[in-house]
């Protein structure tokens, strides 16, 4: 128990560093997607610092676990986790979204060590992750594939094509995580295009649905990921209830901060995540 608490405390500290890097990166660039980056901080932290079998010195290691950030606009969170995990120097943060930098607005697998799939145009990542999971089956490899979906992204038809296929082929080495922050670019998901009943939709498509009532709770995420790993004969999805813009008070739940709506307030955001 004590060991668990210690591990969780360490992961919480790591998540804090990731969150700080996300805000600093976006503040340095003066643009980006803080809302959906911040909602995913604990998810990517738990994955890269605890769950994924990866080796920063061998980013193309064939047996590594795969991660696809299907919601590619959350790139700052992925870059922060990868860098702090040792895949590349945090020096790169200063050139996020800048000409000549490695860190594109949306992830580029050919530029950034540790990025397993390029993404940006929404809806494609679940299919790509499914392809990776199937490849493990064909090639006799033991790696697992994880994919992080946005909620608004589930309005794309291709998500459901992939959902159907993954269940049809009984792919159980694939875990999807849905960053359910309930806010998309133009407003609340429920106002723009309702997704509910969301769990029932995934269940109807043949997935094991694991509810994670607090997608910022390290312990909750670890538990959900552990459950997902044990599911056999079908894919599993963790619906992680998160807060858009988590950690920066004036960004939380705000569609306006899907992107950077007011660059002049970014220093204030940096102070908030760096203080305390």
């Amino acid at each position, binding site marked *: 128990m004590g060991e668990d608490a210690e591990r969780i405390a360490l992961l919480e500290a790591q998540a804090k560093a990731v969150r700080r890097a996300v805000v600093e990166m976006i503040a340095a660039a003066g643009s980006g997607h803080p809302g959906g980056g911040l909602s995913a901080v604990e998810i990517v932290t738990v994955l890269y610092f605890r769950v994924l079998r990866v080796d920063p010195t061998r980013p193309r290691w064939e047996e590594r676990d795969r991660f*696809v950030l299907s919601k590619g606009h959350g790139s700052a969170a992925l870059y922060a986790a990868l860098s702090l995990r040792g895949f590349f120097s945090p020096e790169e943060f200063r050139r996020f979204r800048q000409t000549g930098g490695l860190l594109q607005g949306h992830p580029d697998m050919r530029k950034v060590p540790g990025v*397993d799939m*390029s993404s940006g145009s929404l809806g*494609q990542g679940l*299919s790509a992750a*499914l392809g990776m999971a199937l490849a493990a089956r064909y090639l006799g490899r033991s790696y697992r594939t994880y994919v992080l979906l946005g909620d608004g992204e589930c309005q794309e038809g*291709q998500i459901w*094509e992939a959902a159907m296929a993954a269940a049809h082929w009984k792919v159980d080495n694939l875990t999807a995580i849905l960053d359910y922050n309930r806010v998309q670019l133009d407003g609340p998901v429920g106002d723009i295009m309702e997704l509910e009943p969301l769990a029932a939709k995934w269940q109807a498509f043949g997935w094991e649905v694991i509810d994670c009532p607090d997608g910022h709770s390290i312990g909750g995420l670890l538990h959900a990921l552990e459950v997902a790993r044990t599911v056999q004969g079908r894919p599993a999805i963790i619906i992680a209830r998160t807060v858009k813009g988590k950690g920066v008070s004036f960004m939380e739940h705000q569609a306006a901060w899907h992107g950077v709506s007011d660059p002049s307030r970014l220093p204030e955001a940096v102070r908030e995540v760096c203080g305390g």
Partner: protein
Amino acid sequence: MRPLDRLAMRDAFAQAAIEAAERLPNLIVLDADVSKSTKSSVFAQVFPNRFLNVGIAEQNMVSIAAGLAAAGMIPVVNTFSMLLSMRALDQIRQSVAYTRLNVKIMGHYGGYSAGPEGPTHHAIEDLGIIRSLPNMTLLVPCDATEARAAFHAAVASDGPCYLRLCRNPVPRVLEAPQPFVIGQGYQLRGGWDLTIVAMGVMVARALEAADLLSARGIDARVVAMPSLKPLDRALVERAARETGGIVTAEEHNIYGGLGSAVAEVVAETAPVPVERVAIRDCFAESGDYFELLDKYGLGVRDIEAAAERVLRRKMDARV
């Protein structure tokens, strides 16, 4: 018309895929519920465990292929060319072209070869669309023999490749297999009055047109250009310099395809008269494949007439 191939291009594709799979254990074939049409079903019979039918979901198929390729496999995706190049275009662009992943895309039923299915199923914009994507290789073989060679060349090269295939048996051009080199065209017939540059089913028609021209004392060079991208720029430039006029012939809309590509090179290197035989920016109709080619401006006589226009413009330029 020249004698038809015994095999349709799709049959040649299936044979080539089986040959490739025998030596490449990581090659896998995907289809989107048209495997009986594309003949990937023939591959599936031989290699049932290396075939995936994704159902009617072209976008999913292309992105799955990207994931398979990212993990070291060689996926070969199959469906109609109009679906791949348009419905799954975003997936091809982001997950295959941008990533430079090793995905082989088989655009079946190219041009009018879906014939009676009608304009919804004709692929007349595919080449211009795919050619505009960075990192893509785009191949358009002229007969079954070349289709087989092109498939093997595509699989042998690392990176995204789109192969446009015809549904039907087409007139045979190549009497014997010859090496297929991506980025190279080749001369089929010598001549010094003008050059006809053609690809796909139009290569055979170009040769027929050259026969008609020859009977009238006009000496037309015929060049096959199966590698639309990368284009054999040197061969085009040499044809322009040596023969002073070019006709292009393609089974595609007039924008963005072979005529555009050749005219770009000619304009940039050795400006000479160019006339393009292509679809005149219209949708066709249901009908027999070869009848459609003739009705929509892709007949042997259309090539001959274009050659006459080129020669007239050459004369006018000299006066």
